[in-house]
């Protein structure tokens, strides 16, 4: 545990260093257009560090060029093994969903059959040896040299070929399996022929289908054979950006994922994170089952919720919602509860009788209503334990964090597209030196995501596990206040530096503070995620007295010093390594980067 923590902190320390002082940062991206959209550098090393420091990375983000290279590799491999042309190899691979091993197996098992199925002729036949040939499509007669044919030698004129190819490409990815137009033939039409005859636009479409097929077909086949492949299982996936709605970028990044390497969380280069396993958005620390349960509940409940709240009252004893659709005020709850009560005052029916003004007009209710005791909202608060109220409680907070996250994402984009430039102008700082702000916002987005899911976690945390619940709520509360501090600093305090005339003297201090807060919050949240993923096992170990144990395990959490005073091994180990050339020292307790002159941490008031 300790050593693992050390590792993480060491990584953090490095990334902090990188972020502050290295010149090569995201905004230097030479890819001008892309830089506007991308949150993270094009340089894959950099971005990988950024997204993966919380766990070892078991996936690779591939862009178009990467995919193309892999595709070409596979094609060349097959071409050389089978001694066939690259075009033929591509046709073969596509037919067998780009599985090199499948092509090998099938080919060497029965070459003749494979050739027949795929439409690869052993001996290409030339065009018929006549001066003039009749096109099989338009029936016109043309000189030999304006005719074309696939390997089968069936002659068609160039115009008809173009029409044939264009129609096929515009019909969709089926164009990748194009055959000779002669219905009795079936010889494959290779990429070379298509490319040489298609129009510019069609050629581009074809090229994309070709590339996509490598990604998409590959996935299908491996998912099918999922159980049979054990080691180094890779497959590809198009990042589901379009579903996201928030991110405008529609990129065909694929993800090469190796199963069995720990977490399922994948962060695309566009900064969208999703779960490999269930393809919902990333949901650590909650597992896939809980997520699907929760999402199902949300979709089912949200419609019902309003109706239930408006039309039902909870049984005073068992809290189940009851709709009164007819009859008298005497309500008997359904078994096993069977509690008998008065609909109007929600009091026990046994208390009712002549003295309360009769069974059918509860004057206790009337009287109390006049005195203002039976205020409806008052009643509601009383019923807070009602299961639906409980759900609403968690749902509202889940949803609030969700929207807060969307807002933060939008702010981040705004920051990158507008404010950073302005800030760089005002404060005379190169944009590369402002990466810490992007970092902070990325952290906020991530924290909102985690926080959001902790509410689903809390909802499913059994009611009777009081110690765990208490501990969980404490951790959640701490996480929330920590995040608020970071959010406040990144949002409000930054404004102060944006709206000034000249460079501010204390801008460096601001940098220190925000970067420190980012790092503290990141640590806290990473520990939080780990604690929740472990099912809050600390509570079991420490029995009821979870507070001290918990705060220790979560390490540097709060700047108010409540948790940070505990001497967690994790944060201590990172301290000494964080002193760098520019003369800052990093607080051992909260990792805040302090100016060299300070002897007391400005964040948590601990001595150096």
């Amino acid at each position, binding site marked *: 545990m300790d050593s693992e923590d050390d590792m993480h902190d060491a990584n953090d320390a490095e990334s902090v260093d990188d972020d502050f002082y290295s010149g090569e940062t995201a905004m230097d991206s030479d890819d001008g257009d892309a830089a506007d959209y991308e949150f993270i550098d094009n340089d894959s090393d950099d971005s990988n560090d950024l997204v993966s420091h919380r766990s070892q990375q078991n996936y690779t983000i591939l862009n178009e060029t990467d995919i193309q290279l892999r595709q070409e590799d596979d094609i060349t491999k097959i071409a050389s093994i089978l001694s066939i042309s690259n075009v033929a190899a591509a046709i073969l691979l596509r037919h067998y969903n780009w599985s090199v091993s499948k092509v090998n197996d099938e080919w060497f098992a029965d070459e003749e059959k494979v050739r027949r199925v795929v439409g690869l002729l052993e001996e290409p036949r030339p065009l018929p040896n006549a001066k003039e040939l009749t096109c099989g*499509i*338009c029936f016109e007669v043309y000189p030999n040299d304006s005719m074309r044919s696939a390997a089968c030698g069936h002659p068609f004129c160039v115009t008809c070929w173009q*029409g*044939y190819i264009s*129609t096929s490409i515009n019909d969709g990815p089926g164009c990748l399996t194009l055959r000779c137009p*002669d219905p009795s033939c079936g010889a494959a039409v290779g990429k070379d022929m298509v490319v040489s005859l298609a129009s510019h636009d069609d050629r581009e479409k074809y090229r994309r289908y070709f590339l996509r097929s490598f990604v998409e077909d590959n996935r299908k086949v491996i998912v099918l054979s999922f159980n049979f492949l054990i080691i180094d299982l890779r497959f590809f996936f198009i990042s589901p950006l379009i579903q996201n709605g928030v991110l405008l970028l529609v990129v065909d990044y694929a993800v090469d994922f190796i199963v069995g390497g720990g977490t399922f969380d994948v962060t695309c280069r566009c900064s969208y994170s999703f779960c490999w396993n269930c393809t919902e958005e990333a949901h650590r620390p909650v597992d896939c089952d809980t997520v699907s349960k929760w999402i199902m509940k949300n979709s089912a409940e949200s419609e019902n919720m309003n109706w239930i709240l408006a039309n039902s009252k909870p049984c005073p004893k068992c809290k189940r919602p009851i709709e009164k659709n007819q009859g008298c005020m005497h309500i008997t709850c359904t078994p096993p509860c069977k509690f008998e009560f008065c609909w109007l005052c929600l009091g026990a029916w046994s208390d009712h009788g002549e003295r309360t003004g009769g069974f059918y007009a509860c004057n206790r209710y009337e009287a109390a209503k006049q005195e203002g005791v039976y205020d409806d909202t008052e009643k509601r608060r009383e019923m807070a334990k009602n299961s639906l109220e409980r759900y609403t409680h968690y749902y509202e907070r889940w949803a609030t964090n969700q929207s807060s996250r969307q807002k933060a994402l939008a702010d981040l984009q705004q920051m990158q597209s507008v404010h950073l430039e302005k800030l760089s102008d005002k404060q005379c700082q190169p944009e590369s030196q402002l990466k810490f702000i992007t970092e902070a916002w990325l952290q906020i987005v991530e924290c909102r995501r985690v926080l959001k899911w902790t509410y689903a976690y809390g909802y499913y945390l059994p009611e009777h596990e009081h110690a765990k619940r208490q501990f969980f709520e404490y951790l959640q509360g701490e996480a929330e206040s920590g995040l608020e501090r970071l959010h406040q600093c990144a949002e409000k305090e930054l404004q102060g530096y944006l709206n000034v005339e000249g460079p501010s003297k204390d801008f460096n201090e601001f940098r220190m503070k925000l970067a420190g807060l980012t790092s503290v919050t990141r640590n806290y949240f990473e520990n939080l995620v780990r604690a929740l993923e472990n099912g809050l096992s600390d509570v079991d170990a420490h029995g009821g007295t979870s507070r001290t144990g918990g705060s220790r395990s979560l390490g540097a959490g709060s700047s108010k010093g409540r948790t940070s005073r505990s001497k967690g091994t994790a944060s201590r180990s990172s301290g000494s390594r964080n002193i760098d050339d520019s003369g800052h020292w990093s607080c051992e307790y909260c990792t805040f980067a302090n100016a060299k002159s300070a002897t007391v941490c400005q964040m948590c008031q601990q001595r150096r």
Partner: protein
Amino acid sequence: MANVSRIHRELMQFSKDQSILGMSLMADDDDVRHLTATIPGPTSTPYDGGIFHLDITLPDGYPFDPPKMRFTTKVWHPNISSQTGAICLDILKNNWSPALNLKTALISLQALLSSPEPNDPQDAVVAKQYLGDYATFVATARRWTEDFAKASSANFSGKVHKLVEMGFPEALVKKTLEAVGGDENMALERLCPK
């Protein structure tokens, strides 16, 4: 734009083979992309003796896109809609090739009449009957052929007679009945002034 010169060539070629095939293919006078065709019902099938009319439209992408074909004569067949005459045949859809043509498509349709494919049905009711109660299917198909596909049959003159009695001129009744493939109700609909 559909390749008009190819269509003309097809029509020329077709007229040469017409007598052997026993089929007819005619383009509209004003629009070569709209054609009508007839195919004889294959012998030793319930469709034997019938003449089946088809309505053909050639899309802009023809011959790279398949022709749109539809029976105007009512047919009781698993792969042909008993309501609309729509046809379920692979070469008229995914398996079309520009090297095919109207003649080959019509021959394929004739083949489809001889060998239905009830597992890939257009008309589920007919397909169910074909699989479950073949005798009834054959009887129904034969009756439909008698009723709708035999223009010269006694039945036809019976219908003509009926419609003439309703007060329509005989020549017009015959022409209309032929145009709708012998469907009495459809003919009546057309004859009635709108």
